[in-house]
């Protein structure tokens, strides 16, 4: 089950733009590999918010608004208009907020990080980890039902695979729920 078309309006276009910018800060494109959007982290989160993570939609709506407000207040600019360094500075500020100063915003950032890494390392069937980019990044050979003794030897290298477990028997007939 791949995420439906990413046009559905769980979030407004403006909110999605802020989330996109946040995710690119969490997992930037660099010499190690593609960044969040190319790897499918936005697709992953949007797909989940329409389904199993529906209960977090209010968190995202309010959190993204709050982030915009925080950026406007502290920098005079909207989050999306800041350059990367400026955006990272805002996020670092949020991380260091004391408990009384904005716990919801801090918790929202924690949530985005949690979901971003799910998208990065999770099965590609859910819309993230595009072309197995997350697995390739860390040298993880991908999930398979049977592993040999040789594959458990130190320094053995199994070629990286981008294959979803749902393309491999006996799970090829089913799919993620």
């Amino acid at each position: 089950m791949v995420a439906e078309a990413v046009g559905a309006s769980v979030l407004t276009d403006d909110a999605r733009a802020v989330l996109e910018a946040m995710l690119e800060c969490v997992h930037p494109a660099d010499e190690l590999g593609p960044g969040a959007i190319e790897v499918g982290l936005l697709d992953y989160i949007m797909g989940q918010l329409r389904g199993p993570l529906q209960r977090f939609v209010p968190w995202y709506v309010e959190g993204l608004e709050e982030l915009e407000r925080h950026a406007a207040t502290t920098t005079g600019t909207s989050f999306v208009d800041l350059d990367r360094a400026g955006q990272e500075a805002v996020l670092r500020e949020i991380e260091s907020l004391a408990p009384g100063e904005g716990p919801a915003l801090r918790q929202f950032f924690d949530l985005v990080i949690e979901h971003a890494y799910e998208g990065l390392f999770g099965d590609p069937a859910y819309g993230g980890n595009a072309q197995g980019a997350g697995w390739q990044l860390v040298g993880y050979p991908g999930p398979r039902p049977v592993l040999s003794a040789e594959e458990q030897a130190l320094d053995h290298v199994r070629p990286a695979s981008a294959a979803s477990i749902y393309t491999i028997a006996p799970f090829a007939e089913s799919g993620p729920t």
Partner: protein
Amino acid sequence: MRDAEHGVDVVVIGLGATGGLAASQLALAGLNVVGLEAGNWHHAGEFAMDDIAQLGRNSLGAAKVNGEVPTFRADSHQVAERALLNVGNLMMNGVGGSKTHSTNISWRMSPWNFRARSETIARYGAQAIPEGSTLVDWPLSYDDLEPYYARVERLYGVSGAAGNVGGIRMREGNPFEGRRSEPYPSPPLRRSGWTELMKAAASSLGWSPFPTPASIRSVERDGKKACQYCGFCTWNGCWVDAKAVPSSIGIPEAIETRRLDVRTGARVTSIDVDGDGVARGVTYVQDGQARRITARIVILSAFTYENVRLLLLSTSEQFPHGLSNRSGQVGKHFMTHTFVLGFGLFPGRRLNAWSGSNAQGTAVADFDAANAEHPDFIGGGVIMAGHEIRPLLHHRFAPPGVPRWGSARKRWLAENLQSLGWTYTLPDELPYEDHYLDLDPHVTDDHGLPVIRVTQKLRPNEIRQYEYLAERMREWFEAAGAAEFWHTPIANSPINTHAYGGTRMGEDPATSVVDSYGFSHEVPGLVVLGASTFPTSGGVNPTETAEALTWRTVDRILEIGSPLWG
């Protein structure tokens, strides 16, 4: 409510490791048994190697976790809060229970554990018992339980290497283990580069490493397959059915005799007693309907939190403070295992530790029980180096100092995740007067019934244990050549899958709830199974001990027969 059904010998509440074993063995022996399980049957199609489903959404366990999960507070001055952790709460409903998705490491406790109080006093004096601890000896010995450990291991094809068979020391096994009557029925799970690296390191320190014992088949047996080392063992069921879960071994055979009736989606809401305070059956809800069933024996085997909760909810004229609770002992002497995870980096090495089961490991018992000299704390635990480094879980365990996001984190993960090894330990937490389970005064479940509230915190004795064991993990990784070592913070695991006490066993009804067979002191016909009966937690995983006690109880029920019930 429908009319009560009659004519059943035994009703079993919960078909997990203990209830599933009891229900099937009693039925196979000729009794008529009804097994009530709140969850459903699970099947291999649900067990894909998919960490969004298994870790992220906890597809197997979320219903139990969200429906039953207790609230937690450190002491009685605080208000308890729901501990809604989706990852980490390794417990589920289902036929077979949490054995379906747990790692299935399978230990015998040490002879010392059964006499922890006497042995401590003999060695260090009574003042060594920490203040406020209600540490006691068990009302049975390791030798009493040994034949049942052997029987469980034989039934399930437990895989391991024995260390002491009939008093003969066997080099490959645990030199500290209690004397066994027979070796393991199956060889250890396959060795790997990682297990052997850590074995060599332990040996170089003068420790005595041995393969972690597992209730997972290492070889085909009775037409059933062996472990395929897929790397998704914990929080997941086994797609080849290699884990020794009651739904796979025991229950199917018992159902074939037509003397075991398994009812799923059946949640018990109270245990019923008659005017003389004798257990007479249960009330349960299935398909939205309340039903009653009478039986000669009621076996409560719903895991520690639910065992206590159901007793406290089952009030009556005879038991106004909860069933079997005139003594006030229900909920008392609660213990848990705070896991400490140790990590080491081996730069440039590809450990391939994401494969396999975490039960595929190398263990040391040199620091369990009283195997080492440590007069400043009571307790100890085994330390195990295992498998299943899973990107979705283990990226969280980057050492302090690695940013939680951004390019620097990306670089750390790219350079290090494949070179990350881990160990874990589960120290022996003592029981204390003010660690207990009761009913939360505010929080209820979907049926409007109060959930369990846990009151418990880390005490100095336990903190010293963790620090000691963390240091041993450091030494182990250094001997193995790790460039860097760190461990998880020493902090309470609020709601842990290893949970003990609440219906502890003992000879004195004033300080215990059941006897060594799990028979209630106060309620004829009521039997409690599981780690809620344990007087101490020990330094190993609990399941095999709970299984052995269960089988001993089954034998006792069959031996006594009708005098058991009123």
